[in-house]
Every structure is written in C-alpha cells, then in structure tokens.
C-alpha cells in the first residue's frame, strides 16, 4: 500500500510545481527591490552640496517641521527628466523636496536644473552611493517620504508619473 501511494508522489510534486509556475506566469515580474528601511529612522549622514547653488544635505535637515520628500536622482538618468514636471507640481502644492544626486558632477547638476527646473531646497552629493545604500535605495529615481521625526515612511520606486502625485500627497498627509 505504501509503495502504491509512493508512486503518486512524483505526480503530486509535479502538479504543485505546474500550478505555481502557471500562477507566476500570470504575475507581472517584479523588477524592483524594495527598501527594508520603511518605518526605520534615517541613518546619520552629512553630504556636501551637489553644486554651488544650493546647500548640502544632512540628516538634521530632515528632522523637525513637516514631512518632506527625499528624491534620489542623477543628471545622467533619463527617467529623472520625465519626472521633473511632477516634482515641480508637488513643490507648487507646498511640499518641501530635498535631493540626493548620485554619482554626479556639480556642472552636470547645475545644467540639469537649469534645463528641467529646480524643485529642491537642498541637494546633497553622493558620489559613491553611500547614503543611497544606507537607506536601501537600489536605483534612480526613487522618492522617499520622510516624516518630521526623520523616519522613512514610504518609498516610491521609478519616475513619478502624473497619477502618482496624489498618491505621494496622501502619503505625506499620513506621515504628519
């Protein structure tokens, strides 16, 4: 009897696999790596200014007052151009946006902001992705909601499209 049952084991295992594989084929493949730092306080950091026009960024600048958006971007990143109008729109709604420029040169940062607008109040330069790694960001652009206590509350991966603007406003509201 046990032998008879054992003969069905391969079929059972196979059926399990086939079901799983079929289910996974219908799922869009998740290409993004989410940060595990949501709900955690920002790590300590202090970055030099990314270009002469704006001050640099330290952890202390993100504590106190109201929630802010922390935008991880770079002048060499194409989707960052695509999201520039949305950042402008968010700024127009009274949101404070601070930036961290990843592996970037001051002259490139300045040129990018001159061409695509400057929604930032501060931009820190992160030439070796140190802070990016420390907050669990894995690419550009990414946008984090930081509450007034300096805790990371929300992560948006990829460029901000027009439909994402209300979403981010809601998250900022929640972080109050």
């Amino acid at each position, binding site marked *: 009897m046990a*032998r008879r049952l054992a003969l069905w084991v*391969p*079929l059972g295992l196979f*059926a399990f*696999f086939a079901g799983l*594989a*079929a289910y*996974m*084929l219908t799922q869009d493949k998740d290409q993004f790596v989410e940060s595990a730092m949501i709900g955690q306080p920002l790590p300590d950091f202090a970055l030099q200014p990314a270009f002469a026009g704006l001050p640099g960024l330290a952890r202390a600048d993100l504590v106190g007052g109201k929630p802010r958006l922390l935008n991880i971007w770079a002048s060499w990143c194409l989707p960052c151009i695509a999201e520039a109008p949305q950042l402008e729109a968010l700024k127009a709604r009274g949101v404070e946006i601070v930036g961290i420029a990843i592996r970037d040169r001051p002259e490139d940062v300045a040129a990018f902001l001159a061409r695509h607008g400057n929604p930032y109040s501060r931009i820190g330069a992160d030439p070796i992705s140190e802070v990016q790694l420390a907050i669990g960001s894995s690419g550009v652009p990414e946008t984090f909601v930081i509450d007034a206590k300096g805790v990371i509350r929300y992560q948006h991966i990829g460029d901000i499209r027009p439909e994402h603007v209300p979403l981010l406003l809601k998250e900022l509201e929640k972080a109050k």
Partner: protein
Amino acid sequence: MIAEIGLAALWLAAALAALQLVAGAAALRGGEGAASPLALYARPAAVVQALLASLAFAMLLYAFAVTDLSIKLVATNSHSMKPFIYKLTGTWGNHEGSMLLWVTVLAVSGGLLAAFERRLPERTLGATLAVQGFVALGFYAFLLLSSNPFERLPVPAAEGSGLNPLLQDIGLAFHPPTLYAGYVGLSVAFSLAMGALLTRAVGPAFARVMRPWVLGAWVLLTLGITAGSYWAYYELGWGGWWFWDPVENASLMPWLAATALLHSVSVLAARDALRTWTIMLGVLAFSMSMLGTFLVRSGVLTSVHAFAVDPERGAFILGLLALYIGGAFAIFALRAGAVAEGKRFAALSREGALVFNNVMLSAILGIVLLGTLYPLLTEAFDVRVSVGPPYFNPASAIFAVPMLLVMAVGPLLRWRADRPERIQFEVMLVAALIIGVIAAVSFFGSFPFLPLLGLGLAAGLGVAAFLPLRGRRLARVPVATWGMVLAHFGVAVALFGMASEGAFTKERLAAVAPGGSVEVGDFAVTLERVVPVAGPNWTAIEARLAVRQGDGAPVILTPQARNFWSPPQSTSESALLTRWNGQLYAVIGNQAADGRWQLRLWWKPFVTFIWYGGMLIALGGVLAIAGRVRVDLKRRMARRQGAARRADLEALAGAPVPAE
C-alpha cells in the same frame, strides 16, 4: 521561396508526427502477431519526418547564411555585416531557431530509432514511436502556432538588427546544439521508458536498447555543460565558471538525472534489477530537460544567461510540460505498481553501490531543484530571496561526498554479493590518500573547507578510478570498462580543477599607467600600450600586456573592451594565457582620470582541469557506447552464424547422404 519550402516541410512533418502517433498506437492495440495494417506506417512516418524536419532546418540555415531580410527572424536577429560563422550560428541564437533545432534533433533521433532498432518487440516499439510522435507533435504545434521561424515581413527590412554580442562567439556554434541534442536524446529514453511501461516489457532487453540512447544523450549533455561553463568563464569577464544561476542549474539537473539513469539502466541490463526505478528516472530525466527549457524561455526566474525570454511562450511550454510529464507521471503511478520487482541483491554488492549512487544523485537533484525553484515560490507571496553558492555548495556536498566515496570502491565490488575483506586493501589505500592529501595541503596554509576536501577526494578518486584494472590483462579489458575507468577518472580531474581554483586562485586588481607593471602569482604583467582596434561590427580598445614568468620570454596578451553598434552593447573580451598548470586571465577596464588603466588579473591554478575532466567524462561515455555497440554487433553476428549453421545442419539432415 526558401521560407515557404521550410514552412511546408514543417507542416508535413507535423502531419507525419500525427500519423506516427496513430500508427504506433495501432501497433500497441493490435497486439503481438496480429499486426494492424496501420501499424506498418509507424517506422516510415518517423524516418520521413526526420528528413522533412532536417530540410526545414536546412532552409532556415540557408536563410541566415544569405541574410534574407524578408524573413522576420533573420531581420530581428542577424545583420549583413556580421562574420559569416556567426550568421550561421545565429540560426539557433534566438528562440524560434533554437526550437526548430530542438524539433529537428527530436525528429532525427526518432527517425534513427525507427530505422535501426530491431531488437524490441513490435508492440513496444510501436508504443515508443507513438510517444515520440506525440511529443514531437506538441513541439511542431508550438513552432507553427506561436513561434513560426519562417514568418515573412510585409516589407523586407533594410538591415537586420543584429545578434546579442555576448552570443557572437564560437561558443554559440557548439554549446547550444550539443546541449539540445542531449536534452532531446533524453526524449528517446523517455519514449522507450513509456513504451516499455505501457507494454509491460521492462527488462534487460529493453534496458540494452535504451542504454546507448541514455549514454549518447549523457555524453552530449556533459560536453554541452562543459562547453557552456568555459564559454561563460571567458565571455563574462570575471573569471567565474559556475555560479548556480537558474539557467546553469537548468542544464545541470537533466545531467544529474541522466547520470543516475545511466547507472540504473546498466544494473537493469546486467542484472534485471531496479526496474521501476529505471522507468522513473527515464521520465525524470526528460522532465528536467523540459523544465530547463521552460525556465530558460519563460523568464520566470532571473538569470544572467537568459535570452529570448517571453512569458506567452513560457505558458505554451508549461502546457506541453503538463501534458507530457504530468501524463507520464500519471501513467507511472497507475502502471508501475504492476511492474514486478527485479532480482534481489545484497547491500555489499555492485548493485548496492549503484543504488547508493542513484539515491545520492537523486538527492543532489532534489537540492538543486529546491534551491532553483524556491525563489519562485516565495515570489508568489511577494517575498524575494536569493539562493546562491553559499547554499548550493554545502547542501549538495552533503550528498556528493558520500557518493564520491562509494564511487571510489563501487566498481571493485562483485555483482549480487561481496565480502568486505576482499576490497580491504583498496579501501585502506583510498582512505590513506584522501587523508594524506588533506593533511599535506593544510600543512602549507589554511584553505576553505570544501576546496580542501575536494583536493583530498580528487587524489583518492584519481587513483581509485584505475583500481578496477588491477591484476587484469589490459589488452583483454572490455572497451566499455575502459570507458567507465576514464569517466570516473574524469570526475577526479574535474574535481581537482574545481578545488584548486577555489583554494589557490590569486586575484589582482590594479590601475596601471602604460609602461607600468603588476604582479600576480609568479607572473609579472607589463602594460605596454593601449590601442584602438576595429572589427567587422565592433570597435574596441585593446591593451597589449607583456606577461613574463620568472626569467622567461614575454608573451603578449591582448584583452579588449569592445563596443558593438548593432545592437549597441559593450563586452569585455578577456585574454587567457594557458599553461599546463593553470590559466592567467586578463581583462581591461576603464581609464581613470589620471590616465591609468584598470586591469583585472587572475592566476587560476589548474582551472583548465575542470574542462579537461568534463571532456574525459564525455570520452569515457563515448568508449562505453563503442564497447556496447561492438559487443552487440558481435552478438548479432554470432546469432546469425548460429542460425545459418543450424539451417545448414537441418538441410544436411534432410538431404540424402551423397555417395562417396
């Protein structure tokens, strides 16, 4: 015209596969003796189908050779400026072409089976051909309905969009066709196993028919994996030869199953034991081939070697997988209970050792399967995990080490039952070697545990492989036995290469100005200059490195950083200096602001032994096939002579005695 001929040939081949299925099934239903008239068509259908599939493949090959840009597949995967050899190999450097290659090999092996196999009972062969036709039919449907390689463009393209530069390498000429032929060779083993199960003909005669196919497929898989590993090693530019990537595992799993099958089919042929187990492995080996194809094509798992990924096609392959493998496992569950258990044997016997080997190989297969598919399972729950070398290496070693130990002495044991005293000396010798080498190596430095163990095992196995020849007259040792000795020795050689690479590799990363030198191992490497060079479809910067070992004359190495323009992509072409005792691996990186160039250098002692070992294993397989076929031909000859003599005697007895 070319494309239309190819497409027509493909449709006809599909129709013949359907005929083969029906005719084979008729033979199965007809029963012995009472041959159904339809059953006569099974063999010719298989043979003609093989010719038609080959014709279709030849047409596609031709279209790629002349870069016929009115065909969509050529336009999207080739380029008129590509070197000719890569135009040809580009035929299977894409999804449709590689699937056409797959069905061609499937049809050709079915054709060969139908044309030359005379030992099996007609019913069993009929069932086998029916299964083979059924499998082929599914793949024809796949090609014709969702991956037509001969699709025309409404307007011919002005220029092709080129082939992925990583594939523009001689490795593409060799690695995929060999691996595919191996995968598909296992389909014959699968069909035979199903045929034997359906007609209740599981026995030594069936095993002897199945063995050359298993051996052949296994040899091709071994070569394919060996070639693929070497290709990835020099092409990806970081000196790694195996990373337990899902696609690498997809090729390893059929090999593990085929290795187990190969040993169990030998037991079945020689001793009529392990009947159910052999059938199970026959199904399993082909399932792993199809699973591999599914994983590679569907893109459900992330891999560095994934090309031509498309989930819709993945769904089609999954459907085929469910049909064939699900069906086969269902028939197995229903029928295998009726297969009588084979002959019995003692624990300490050749069969015992082979059973041990089989169980361990299956366990390794289980671990690799688990580790490969586990990330897929967690992703279903939106959790992402990575399973890599730190998991696979120790987990598979748990089973590989006992298996290798038994492999050292297994071939010395007698069939059925043996006494431990008889192999005492050999066991002591192998144990002394393993322990001695481990002790000696750890005396000279501290090395990671697994490579150290690997070195000891390699030494023990290397000697143990030849022990079966001890006390025998070498000229009279059967060819197949030499094959086994060589294959087992190859395992030791490959293991030695892997362990040395793991324990002794020297890495040197340096920024070097032209004229400057760095040292790695006992080599002094001087960057003479960096020059721009151009190829047919790429430009590159090339470093000229003068490599000196001790006081020897310098050897020039020229690693390149290439930029292809169609499609735009850059690759680093490593430069290798091969010595008998290892390889120097050089890569050029970017130029720093101060003008110095980034060089990556490795000295990898005995790394080449990994692939030499792979080739030895395959060579052992070839010898085993040659030996078996020779014995088989001799036996047939003897039987024919015996029959002729008997006929003569009968004729003599019947004839009147001639007068003196």
